[in-house]
């Protein structure tokens, strides 16, 4: 089982926006490293994190989101019926960062 647990795709968007798409699973084994990479990618800019394809996000992942929100402006895109949305609601992370169901307009431009 050496297939990567998560998939990450980062795009620089106009207006100092970084769009990152996360798929797969995030747990204690990959969250710290992923957090590092996203912090470097965002470098204080607005980080738009698309979690639509994410299948598993545990408390380590929540910790990662929390760290990101402290260093960048963070906005999330989450599928409303997913376990990820449920988890974010449970820990009330939606109070800390805007949560969208679809990409907001200013970034969806040009996404095709």
């Amino acid at each position, binding site marked *: 089982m050496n297939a990567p647990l998560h998939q990450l795709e980062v795009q620089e968007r106009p207006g100092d926006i970084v769009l990152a798409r996360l798929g797969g699973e995030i747990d204690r084994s990959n969250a710290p490293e992923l957090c590092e990479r996203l912090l470097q990618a965002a470098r204080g800019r607005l980080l738009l994190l698309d979690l639509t394809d994410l299948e598993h996000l545990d408390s380590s992942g929540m910790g990662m989101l929390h760290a990101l929100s402290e260093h960048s402006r963070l906005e999330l895109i989450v599928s409303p019926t997913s*376990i990820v949305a449920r988890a974010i609601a449970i820990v009330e992370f939606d109070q800390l960062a805007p949560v969208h169901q679809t990409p907001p307009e200013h970034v969806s431009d040009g996404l095709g």
Partner: protein
Amino acid sequence: MLGPMPGVPDDLAAAAALGGEMGSRILEFDWAGHPLGAIEAWPDWMRVTVAEMLASRFPIVLWFGDELFLMYNDAYLSALGEKHPAALGTPGRLIWSEIWDVIGPMLLGVMETGVATWSADQRLALIRRRFAEEAFFTFTYSPMFDQSGAVGGIFCAVHETTEKVQGERRLGTLSALASRLVERNDSDAVMEAASEVCGSNLADLPFVGFYLAEGDSVLLRACTDGLRDVLAPAAPSVRTWADEGAGAGGSVLLEDCRARFPGLAERLVDGVPEQALLMSLIGGPGSELAGWMVAGVSPLLMLDDGYRSFLEMVAGHVGRGLATARLQQLESARWDALVELDRAKSQFFSNVSHEFRTPLTLIASPLEDVLSEPDELSQTQRERLTIARLNAMRMSRLVNNLLDFARLEAGGAEPDLESVDGAALTADLISMFRSAFEKAGVGLEAELSLSAPLVVDVGMWERIVLNLLSNALKYTLEGTVRVELGAEGESVQLSVSDTGVGIPADQHDLIFTRFHRAPGVGRSIEGTGIGLAMVRELVNALGGQISVRSALGAGATFVVSIPLRSEDGSFLPAAERRRPGPAPSDVGTMFVDEAMQWISGGERISHDPGEDLASRRTEGQRVLIVDDNADMRNYLERVLSSSWLIDTATSGAEALERVADVRPDLILSDVMMPGVDGFSLLERLRDDPDLREIPVILLSARAGAEAALEGIEAGAEDYIVKPFTSRDLTRRVRARLAASQERSSRVVADERRRGALVALSKALARAAAPEELATVVLDALADIGPALIVVLGRLEAQDVLHLDFAGPVGASMRARWRQVKPDTDSPLSRVARTQVPLLLDDSRQLRTMFPTLRAEDVVEGLRGLAVLPLSIDGRAEGALAIGWREPVDLEPAEVEFLEEVAELVVRTCERMRVVEVERTLAEKLQDELLAVPARCLSAVIAARYSSSSTLPGVGGDWYDAFELDSDRVGVAVGDVVGHGIESAAVMSQLRSVLTAAAMQADGPVEAIEALDRFARHVPGATMATAAYAVIDTAKETIEYCCAGHPPPMFVSPRGKLEYLQDCRGLPLAIGQAARPRPAGRHAFPPGSLLLLYTDGLIERRRRSLDVGLDRLHAEIAASWNLPARALTSRLLRLAHQDGEPDDDMVIIAARSTGRAELVYAQTFPADTKALAGMRAHLRTWLDSHSVQPEERDEIVLAVDEAVTNACEHGSDFDARKVVTLEATLTNGSLLACVSDSGQWRANAPDSAATGGYGHRLMEALVDSFEIHSDRYGTSVTLGKSLKASVFS
């Protein structure tokens, strides 16, 4: 400071700079040319250790490589002495060749095994000042591991304790001498004790010889064992050697011992002294020389100041011991001579008195009897007989006075001092005279203002007072006699003043001399003239003085002054202090009788007008009279028959024959009889258990306190000296009979106390904890004078006195006094500290004695209080207080009883402590034995142990589980007969052997057979049982074998139960070893459950085993699908509810890993990399049950949180540890259990990554969420009822 040196690593350079001389030497040493190699090439571990050593101020020596090359720091230099600096870098065996036989094996052992050594005060003979020298060291050799993990050298921290050890040794010898010599009263004993003490310290005193001067010659009087023939020939030379030296008083160093004492070398094989010190034996400054002591100087010691002064102190002690012994010898010879003289005098007077007294009694007593019957005589007869009686009495007085005086003058009258109420005693004596004064028309005034206790011999005081009163009345024809008693400065003053005829001044000195009689007109001219002389002797014997103020015609005042002694402050039970009061004595009666004669001219006055002998005949009491003199026998019978039934015997022998039949209540026997005399009769009676209670009164003509004492000591109840009056005789017989009745009631009281002690010891044996003991004691006392409270104070570690209360003591007081420091000033802590009992007849004194006590610290209603010390073998253990509602005045027997109670209590405490220590030890052992397997990947294993509540200590039940290889796991359980440490030891052996055998064996039968063979050699293993099973997860089978053990339970993944019966064999270590044991085999698909247990789980008293098995079957059927840990806990709990078990219980469950329809078990290393796989497996399993995706994801997330926590906090991400997950689906709900071997830590502050989110997630995602943590590990159980699944 050293400058930077090329090639020297920084850390070593820094340490060297701090390392003084050795710092420089180590840096400058040519290591490149040394086998250890250049300093810059030293491996890290070596360099670091050398740096540490140099920087340390503790003596450290390092040994490197196979050759054990030395390196050391400055602090170690003193241990090396002159071996430094050559020692640096030199192989250890060359440097320490002289002690290599001791330390070599220790060092090599550490090199080989890596196990450190510890030596405390190790004695070594080192050559560090060119001679082998005794030295002591406390040190440890510990291994230093090199980079490959092999032992590369040895680290030794060493502390020299030579001074301490030698100092203690010498002090021991000196204090032994001081204590052994003090009691010796002849020089032989002193010599013997001295050489014995010296012989116990051969290290400092390899040999000693004591040479005593006897006249012109000198003789060896004592010496070290076995050296007499070597040391004795030197005796004639000793004086010469001493004279050649510094002179008397000093010590002389004798060189070349071998030449002076030929043969010494052959006798002392452990090193021969080259030198000896010759010292004078002198009793003290200015005393004469008694002889000399020669002490060999140990070849292993330098004769330094400390050693030399030790030897001189030994000689000093011995010299003083000799001097004291000589003084005591002289003293005791002088004393013996005095005693002999005194004895001869007493003997003479006793013999004379005997000749007089018997005839006097037989004259006076019949006369008295005749005169007391008024109607039988004519007036003329009466007058004549009265004269005869008066003269008989006078003669008797003369004899008594002469004897008393003679004894006093001989210095033989030792006052028997006691503390009495002087005013009361004196008042009683005065009142005896009152009627005589009234009759004479002389006034009698008394002012008795003495409040301090009077410390006198009561008999002497009586004679002083009575003589003075009698004297005053005799010479006072009219007027008043005045008696005053009071304290005057440091003395007690008694003055007797009269208004009589007075004494001319020139007579004042003479009146106190013997046989002097003052001229003048008194009431009577009779008298021996020894009254005042005797008073003076008596006063002197009491350490006082007497004086007189008088002038002719102006009356006289006699003033007696005796020292006001302070009362002894030591503890005396109140009953002992209160001596029998000053009863009207015979002496008093005699004086008064005499005085009455002067006044009334012979009319006898009874002082006991109410006493009518005939009317006082006591119901049925018998007195046996034993006397060889028929007259005396008849007289006694006549006197006593009016009151008692009388039997007579004419000899001691006859008395012995008759006494068993007669059963007298009292025996009155003469002392002097032919054949069996009074003393022999007494002795034989006392030897006979049947007769020893009969009181005996001895009659004797031998007067004097010694004779009476002899009689009392021989066991007589009383001792009556002839002559005596019939009244006196009757009174004393009556008193003795009453006392014996009282004694028999005391015997009853004693028996009740003994009964109470027996009951108490039984109750104490039943008590379970020291806290209960106070109550036990209070209950036990209820039968014999109930107490109000009992307080037990127990000294425990850390200097704390624990108090337990019984009785009406309020909660706040209990809380305040639950624990106190022993130095608190309270009754219990004081007694616990001083070990001196405290008896208070009234607790109101408490707050005066203990000023820091507050009013509320004294229990309400408490009056009498006894606090007794508790100790074991002289070690203070605490105190026991017993308090009563009434003031108490304890008799000695009662105090003794309480002391026995205290002894029982402290013994019980000790016993409980031992039991407690043993229990703690046993529990620890059991914990060790029952550790849950740390790692097992093919099955989820849970085990539970519960000790018996009824049996003490640890049980004989054990279990084990171990991984045989990646597919196979062994599970075992066993039961050893018996309880306690011993069976724990047996079970630990069986457990280890089974594990070892299992690793080798080809299947469980072989393993059990190996265990059986082993058990035959272990005492205590007979009849032990065991069950052992091997689960093979690859083959999906189980193999098992039982040795007399209850059948294991198998549960299929679908919940089908089955006892595994095919394996029943004999218990261990009985029957034929060779016979093959039956084996069992069963399919064991993934998710199967195996349960092993011990009989405590199923066996109950008076119940068939089948009932227990059925019950267990039912319980497992109802809960088989619980996770293993929850299942074992539940079964144990149910077993406890099924009647209290008599035995301890073990249950171990193993569930094989894998997915089954209803259960799912998984194990994985505590590594986050395992998380994804765990989730995938769990999802698959949940999907196979058509659990809805949302619920599935919620379950997976919650379990993931629990597993992450188990990996992180329970196992610190240590991949060698195992985390287990079990999940079951029943009745539409899911139960998942995650277990690890660590402690639960909720929201650990360092878990930044999870930030406490995990807990919130788990709580929100599942319906129930339980954490159970114990010393074996932590498990989290999640429960969730499912909305829809195939089972709902």
